[in-house]
């Protein structure tokens, strides 16, 4: 499940301090490429090569983004989105880990619940939003539920698969010492499954953000997803691009934060 890894993480090169210079060398062209694209964007808009109200110059977008820092709608919306994403993520993850471990260890629960989970799993998230509106309204309950549901599956699947690979000797040892069932789960199975859980949690972080935006678009009254659609109708592309920019920065920051936390909290990650 290393599908969501980073590009550099996979680099087979040694990332010692001496190679930083060597790595930045080729990347210089990449940075130049981005600069060239942005410059072309700016010039094409300023000189009217692309005559469209939806093609604002980069500087105008940047200006819109910076002027939002003084307390604009985008940051307020983003905060609302993040709050929902985080709440839903927490609920979905806790349920995913708990059920993943329980189902991994108990045959009765597996028979009772696994078929139900497998039935619900392939439903694309946007599809559950319209029926949920009928029951939960269009407020936070709906969005948090949708986010929890979307984050539950990768966390559950990874945890469940992870539990299956826990070395049986560990569990036998715990049994030898007459460790209670609950304690074995918490102190033996959970730590051994953590790397797998972390992989699921990481997939879930990006999903949480995506689904938060999706739910706000389909059934919105606030949040960055709603804001984007609103700006689309208001024909304010500069603000729209600025909002996308903030979202991208958020997504990037969340991913980085996760990697740092992962390295700190699970030092035995990837050392099987």
């Amino acid at each position, binding site marked *: 499940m*290393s*599908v*969501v*890894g*980073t*590009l*550099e993480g*996979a680099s*087979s090169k040694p990332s010692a301090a001496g190679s930083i210079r060597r790595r930045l060398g*080729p*990347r*210089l*062209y*990449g*940075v130049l*490429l*981005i600069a060239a*694209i942005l410059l072309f964007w700016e010039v094409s808009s300023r000189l009217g090569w692309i005559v*469209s109200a*939806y093609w604002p110059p980069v500087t105008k977008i940047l200006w819109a983004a910076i002027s939002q820092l003084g307390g604009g709608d985008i940051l307020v919306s983003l905060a609302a989105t993040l709050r929902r994403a985080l709440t839903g993520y927490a609920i979905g993850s806790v349920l995913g880990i708990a059920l993943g471990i329980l189902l991994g260890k108990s045959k009765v629960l*597996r*028979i*009772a*619940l696994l*078929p*139900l989970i497998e*039935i619900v799993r*392939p*439903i*694309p998230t*946007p*599809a*559950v939003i*319209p*029926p949920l*509106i*009928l029951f939960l309204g269009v407020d936070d309950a709906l969005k948090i539920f949708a986010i929890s549901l979307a984050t539950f599956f990768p966390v559950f699947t990874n945890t*469940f*698969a992870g539990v299956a690979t826990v070395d049986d000797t560990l569990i036998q040892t715990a049994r030898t010492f007459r460790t209670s069932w609950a304690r074995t789960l918490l102190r033996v199975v959970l730590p051994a499954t953590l790397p797998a859980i972390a992989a699921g949690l990481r997939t879930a972080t*990006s999903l949480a*953000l*995506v689904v938060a*935006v*999706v739910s706000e*678009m*389909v059934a919105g009254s606030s949040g960055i*997803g709603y804001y*984007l659609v609103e700006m*689309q109708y208001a*024909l304010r*592309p500069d603000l*729209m*691009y600025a*909002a*996308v920019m903030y*979202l*991208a920065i958020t*997504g*990037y920051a969340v*991913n980085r934060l996760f990697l740092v936390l992962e390295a700190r909290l699970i030092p035995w990650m990837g050392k099987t």
Partner: protein
Amino acid sequence: MSQRSEVYRTSLLGLLSPAIVLSVWESAGALGWINPILLPRPSQIVWSLVELVADGAVFPPLLYTIALFVVGYAIASILGIAIGVAMATSETLYGLLEPLVEILRPIPKSALVPVLFLFLGIGKTTMITVVVLAAVFPVLISTFQGVRGLDPVLLETARTFQVSRMRTIFSIILPASLPMILAGMRVALGLGLVLVILAEMLAGEDGIGFRILDLQRAFQIREMFAWIFVLVALGGGLMMLFDLIERTLVPWRGKT
């Protein structure tokens, strides 16, 4: 994996809990415990579904969504594999493209849907672009990781025998990294489907996503659930097809 197949081996037991849930739902509906307007009984939903299939009304939107998805997914897969291999095999291309990929990748692709509507207008091109954007990055990244993770001996052997660059890519690199490529394509499959449904909901002219939201707004709940069922069947069907293709192409997968 073994635990999952264990449940299916005892398939009658596996059917037990869905059967219980369905019958509780059905009888609760029949006894009037749940509001039939908000949550119709399973039998009513099945009936709507049968009607939908019988008069053929299901096919135009279904085929519409499938067409948009398949075209976008195919483009995304080819692009993702091509760029992934290029970046993994050439230091220059890696340096050139890596910063750009790293900037575009963390953008939640759903946020780009309204942007694309403004930019490309509302229509098939936009929908396909949405799918491509959503699906290309998982394919690209796992292809890259797959190729970078290849045994160097393979490539050195090819070099020893002076195999040409193109041939090395097509006969050695691609087959050897196929399991990773397929893992990325599996993630892309789910993401692409989510995004095409979302795009259809936000500004569709047709398609399953458009139908579901439209029926919900028209308060035709029974029909809405029937369409959701169609969508689930589509998602499940695509996944099964994918599993089948994967098992055919990579029979050794998961047997390490």
